[in-house]
C-alpha cells in the first residue's frame, strides 16, 4: 500500500487521532470522580477559611461545611452565612480577571460591612512564584479582620505583609504589580456588590 497516498494519510490520521482521544477519554473518565472530589473539597476548604472557621481534617471540612454554614440566596446571588460568637459573617464567591486569567475565590465580610473576615483563592493562573503568591498565607492573612475603608481597601506596594488591621491597606506582591492591582479591583467591586446586597435587606 502506498503510504504517501492521500487516502492512506487521511485514514491514518483519523485512526491515530481516534485512538489517542479514546485513550484520553478513558483516563479522564476513570479519574473524573477523584478530580471532582478534589475540586469540591478545595472549594469547601476555601469557603471555611474565608469565614475563619478552622478545620484539621477532610472529614471535619465536610462536617463543618454542612453544619456551620448556612447558604442563602439574595438577588440570585449565592451567599453563605456563618454565625459565630464574634458576630455574623457573610461570604460570597467571586471571580474576576487577573493578569493572565480568571481569579476565583471567596470573600467574607462581617454582616455590618465593617471588616473583611477573610479572603481565599480557589483558582488562579497568575505567574508561578510571582502573581501566584496571592495564594500564599502571608498575603491572604493580611485580609483577616482588615477594616473596610471609605473606598474599600488598598493593595499597596510590594512588601512583607501589612500587620495593621485598621488602615484598610494590605501589601501587594513584589514583582507582581498587575496581579496586586487586579486583586484590589476585584475586592473593591465585591465589597461594593456585598454592600448593595446586604444593605437592601436592612
Amino acid at each position, binding site marked *: 500500500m502506498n503510504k504517501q497516498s492521500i487516502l492512506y494519510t487521511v485514514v491514518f490520521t483519523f485512526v491515530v487521532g481516534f485512538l489517542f482521544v479514546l485513550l484520553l477519554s478513558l483516563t479522564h473518565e476513570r*479519574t473524573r470522580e477523584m478530580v471532582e472530589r*478534589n475540586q469540591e473539597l478545595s472549594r469547601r476548604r476555601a469557603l471555611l477559611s474565608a469565614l475563619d472557621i478552622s478545620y484539621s481534617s477532610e472529614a471535619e471540612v465536610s462536617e463543618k461545611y454542612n453544619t456551620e454554614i448556612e447558604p442563602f440566596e439574595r438577588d440570585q446571588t449565592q451567599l453563605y452565612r456563618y454565625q459565630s460568637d464574634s458576630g455574623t459573617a457573610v461570604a460570597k464567591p467571586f471571580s474576576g480577571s487577573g493578569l493572565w486569567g480568571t481569579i476565583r475565590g471567596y470573600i467574607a465580610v462581617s454582616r455590618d460591612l465593617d471588616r473583611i473576615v477573610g479572603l481565599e483563592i480557589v483558582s488562579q493562573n497568575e505567574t*508561578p512564584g510571582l502573581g501566584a503568591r496571592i495564594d500564599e498565607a502571608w498575603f491572604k492573612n493580611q485580609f483577616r479582620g482588615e477594616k473596610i475603608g471609605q473606598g474599600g481597601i488598598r493593595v499597596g506596594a510590594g512588601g512583607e505583609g501589612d500587620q495593621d488591621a485598621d488602615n484598610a491597606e494590605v501589601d501587594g506582591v513584589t514583582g507582581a504589580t498587575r496581579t496586586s492591582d487586579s486583586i484590589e479591583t476585584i475586592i473593591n467591586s465585591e465589597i461594593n456588590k456585598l454592600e448593595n446586597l446586604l444593605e437592601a435587606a436592612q
Partner: protein
Amino acid sequence: MSQSSAGAVFKENIWTNNPIFIQVLGICSALAVTNLLSNTLIMTIGVVFVTGFSNLTVSLIKSLIPRKVRMMVQTLIIAFYVIIVDIVLRAYLPEISRNLGPYVGLIITNCIIMGRAEAFAQSNPPVISLWDGITSGLGYMGVLMVIAFFRELLGFGTLFGFQVLPETFVPWTIMVMAPSAFFFLGLIVWIGKSIMNRSGAAA
C-alpha cells in the same frame, strides 16, 4: 540496545549535547518555572516522562506515519502524554496541580520534546529512543534544578520551601523574576563550555 550506544546517548544528552546549554532549547520554561525548586522538580519530571514516552511512541509507529502528517502526528502524541500528566496531577496531587497551573499544559510547547522526536525517535529503534527521551529530559532537569536552586535560595532564602538563610537575609527580588534566569543560564553556558574546552584541549 548495546551498552556503548546507551552510554553514548546518556553522555550526549546530559553533557556534550545538553538540550539547554548546547542546543539552547526549552528556554522559555527555563525562565518561567525556575524560581521555586519544588515546582521545577515536578514540571521537569513531567517533561522527562513526556519526552521519554513520546519518543517511544513515535519510534514504535514511525514506519506507519505518512511523511506529510509526520509532525502533526508527533504533536498529537506529545499532547496526549501532556494531558495524561495533567490529569494524573489533578487527580492525585491536586495541590501541585494548583501551583503549576498553566505550566503543565505548556510542556507541549517545549521544543526539546518535538526536537528529540524528530531528530532521534524518527530514525532509531524504540528502546534506545525511550532512553534518549528520558536522558534528554534529565539533562534539561539538571540545568533547571541548578538555576532553581540559586534563584530560590537568593530570591526567597529557602530551599524546597524550608528557610535556610537567616531571617536577616534580604531576599533579592530580581531572583524571583524571569530575567535572573537569563543571568544564570548565561553563567551555566559559560562554565559548561569552559570545562568542555579544557577537557577537549587536554584530550
